[in-house]
């Protein structure tokens, strides 16, 4: 994995310092609160000065995030967070840039910027707060709402196949994709730190609960009760083992599809279990992992993909410094006087 080194000595602020003075206006019980809290706790650990951090967003409940963080912040327009963050990061690569967005903001109106920022591999961290609904506009279905769900704009149930954000991201050449739950602060903090370390665009999908318009959207696997049996926490280089008793594992079956097995049953041993390789460029297995889930397979959490690849703004800076050395045009006067000119 391509990692940035974190200089912890630069840490000069606490969680309190990065908490803004604005009243947090999310509904009581909304998953956004916990995510914000983990974020604020994580920030002092990234080794960046407070003034070198920028938080940008689009529009949505989730996109109010920047107001609550006392760094530089920009609450943009609906769907354009990725483009906004791209411009900010390219203009000043020294900033630690965090983009916060919802499933509507990033996958409906913002879908194009979302896939393009991933492809370009600009070094920003994207927190995608996926509640599978439009919260701010009060309950219309989003591109991640499951088929058949009745919402304000689908009174007879939706008829659209939802996106799986990880799958879409990998299809768009994402170099980093992780998934986490809004009810696991430790996992959230860890994964956000991983994302910050990754050089390139990092996408984290937060399975966020909207208590008002789609309460329990992720409960099937996110509920504490089921979590052990219905999710698997992937770690690079480790076996894909899960379950309350750590007795379940994943293998590829004869048809090359992922299958869940019980270690000790049918002659399966730990050796048969797949080892997670987050760093391979091949999208195939990452895709299978990102899309697996109920009824037969656990939902993958943790860092599913983290591959090294050239970063947009690094290449740009390189081209610029090369050009500064090699080009004869050093000033605008040089340019104005280049080529055919004549004196009168």
């Amino acid at each position, binding site marked *: 994995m391509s990692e940035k080194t974190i200089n912890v000595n630069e840490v000069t602020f606490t969680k309190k310092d990065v908490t803004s003075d604005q009243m947090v206006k999310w509904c009581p019980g909304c998953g956004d609160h916990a995510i914000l809290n983990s974020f604020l706790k994580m920030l002092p650990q990234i080794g960046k000065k407070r003034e070198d951090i920028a938080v940008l967003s689009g529009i949505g409940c989730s996109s109010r995030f920047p107001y609550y963080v006392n760094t530089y912040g*920009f609450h943009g327009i609906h769907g354009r967070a990725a*483009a906004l963050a791209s*411009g*900010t990061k390219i203009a000043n690569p020294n900033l630690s840039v965090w983009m916060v967005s919802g499933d509507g903001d990033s996958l409906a109106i913002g879908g194009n910027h979302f896939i393009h920022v991933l492809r370009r591999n600009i070094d920003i961290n994207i927190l995608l707060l996926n509640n599978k609904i439009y919260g701010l506009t009060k309950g219309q279905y989003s591109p991640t709402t499951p088929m058949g769900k009745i919402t304000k704009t689908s009174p007879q149930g939706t008829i659209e196949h939802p996106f799986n954000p990880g799958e879409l991201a990998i299809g768009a050449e994402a170099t980093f994709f992780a998934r986490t739950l809004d009810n696991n602060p430790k996992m959230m903090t860890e994964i956000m730190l991983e994302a910050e370390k990754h050089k390139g665009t990092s996408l984290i999908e937060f399975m966020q609960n909207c208590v008002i318009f789609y309460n329990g959207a992720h409960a099937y696997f996110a509920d504490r009760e089921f979590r052990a049996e219905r999710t698997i926490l992937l770690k690079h280089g480790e076996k894909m083992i899960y379950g309350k008793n750590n007795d379940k594992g994943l293998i590829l079956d004869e048809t090359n599809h992922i299958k869940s097995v019980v270690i000790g049953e049918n002659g399966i041993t730990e050796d048969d279990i797949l080892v997670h390789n987050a760093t391979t460029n091949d999208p195939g297995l990452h895709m299978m992992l990102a899309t697996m889930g109920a009824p037969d397979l656990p939902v993958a959490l943790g860092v599913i993909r983290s591959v090294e690849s050239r970063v947009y703004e690094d290449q740009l800076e390189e081209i610029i410094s090369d050009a500064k050395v090699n080009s004869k045009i050093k000033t605008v006067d040089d340019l104005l006087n280049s080529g055919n000119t*004549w*004196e009168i």
Partner: protein
Amino acid sequence: MANKENGMNEAEHVVVRFTGDSGDGMQLVGNLFSDSTAFAGNDFATFPDYPSEIRAPQGTVAGVSGFQIHFGHQAIYTSGDLADVLVSMNPAPLKKNLSTVKPGATIIVDVDAFTEKALKRAGYDSNPLTDGSLDGYNLVEAPITSATEKTVMELGIEKKMASKFRNVFALGIVFYIFNRDLKTADEFFEKKFAKKPLLVEANKKVLRVGANYADTIEALSSHRINVHASELEKGRYRNIIGNTATAWGILAAMERSGRSLFLGSYPITPATSILEELAKWKSLGVKTFQAEDEIAGIVSSIGSSFAGAFAVTSTSGPGLALKSEAIGLAVITELPIVIIDVQRGGPSTGLPTKTEQSDLLQAMWGRNGESPVVVLAANSPSNSFYMAFEAARIAMEHMTPVILLSDGYIGNGSEVFKIPKVADLPKINPPIAQANDPDYQPYARDERLVRKWAIPGTPGLEHRIGGLEKEDIYGNVSYEALNHQKMTELREKKVRNIANFIPLQEVYGDTTGDLLVVNWGSTYGASHEAVDELRKEGKKIGMVNLNYIHPMPRNVAEIFAQYKKIIVPELNLGQLVKILKVEFPQFSYHQYNKVQGVPFTKSELVNAFKNLL
């Protein structure tokens, strides 16, 4: 062409048009002739005119590619109306161009290309060379194809390659007509084909054969033309294309502001070459970002502006429409950004390669809410340099989006440009907030109503902005009724107040009289020439050219009051007139409008103005 001198006819100014198939290299010889015109010391302006297809069908009227140059002894303001010399490489361009050639003009055709098949493809029923339709002209039936073939074959070049040199033969003829030094072309060939000496030799040779051919034929000896060198101000000059001038004006502003430049843009005709030009100058620190669409183009720029860069986005009409929503974000966040719109024929995709002035109302009012921006307009290729600079100055010093309007005629056209020294341009002073300024508030304003630019990376100025209404001074989100009223008025006043920071409007011609021509944008040249002509006839007529449309210079109404009548020529259905009616309802306005994808000619404006005198 009154007097003769050295066997040459004297002319004040002349229009030469090279026309052929898209593949015939007309743009190349046009540019070479422009270079030689520069060295001859004339002022000039040029305009290329090519079909929107990449390789339009050969030999058809739809596929004709043209290059026009207008040069003269005195200042030149347009690329000209009717041609004094037309080069036509086959029947189709002749068919397309004849109606815009002066009576008595020299028409040079490649007689070898006037085959029956070619005539038919061009849509001719009979041969214009023989059916009398060219009777009033000085027709030169040059054996361009055959003579070129012979020439290059002598150098050992294959016959089928000869077509690549036909244009140079034609250029030789034109050089002869204007008695031009062949060296400017020679130098070009030597540079371009440095590694292919045979090509250098062949081009030089064909050029001379063309010139010599011209020397031998009677039709030309009495039709040579001399245009005295212009009396331009002393200085260093170059030829400049409008879009290049815009790009360079932006670069100059970057240097004078000390900010780094970020251009977020998406290709679109006829604006693309601004992006292409700026992409070259990484050595000046320029960052160009070819976005996935126009929205990402402007929004990434706004992001860069937030980060402290000098932000620019460039587009044409349909792209400006797509940027509408995001312009509002720049308005409410009061971040500087220059939005360049090189207008083309509309509505919708319209006439993408043709010129028009029909985005003005969109620029003024094409956004939701009360969303004031500054609107400037360039009026010629070289003026684009200065207006781009002005757009940048106003954007950064007043923390506001500025829309700069250009158009296809300006953007693709070129003219002589006196090279300025960057150090002589004004310094641009953005109101950058200082680190740890204890008094910093995101929406506190100075006496010009301008807020400060607090740039990420600066300690102690951490703050949040966004598209929701801002609380006065503090910039927090505010839904408060009176605050909204106040902020709406502040944004409006801030932009109006810029009238105090732009030059007063100048008048050309009579400063009081019977008719005032109110011009904006690329129609400047034709208006100027028409005004000149009428003033020579003794008419009392003046002209203002509005480079600053919103806000307008403070003295405009005063000027309007000095004339009996006001006329506004526009390449649209009357968009500036609408704005004038709103701003200065005390006057009444005559309109003269044309929506044909082409510029005004001087003569139609002369007629239009005369009708009111």
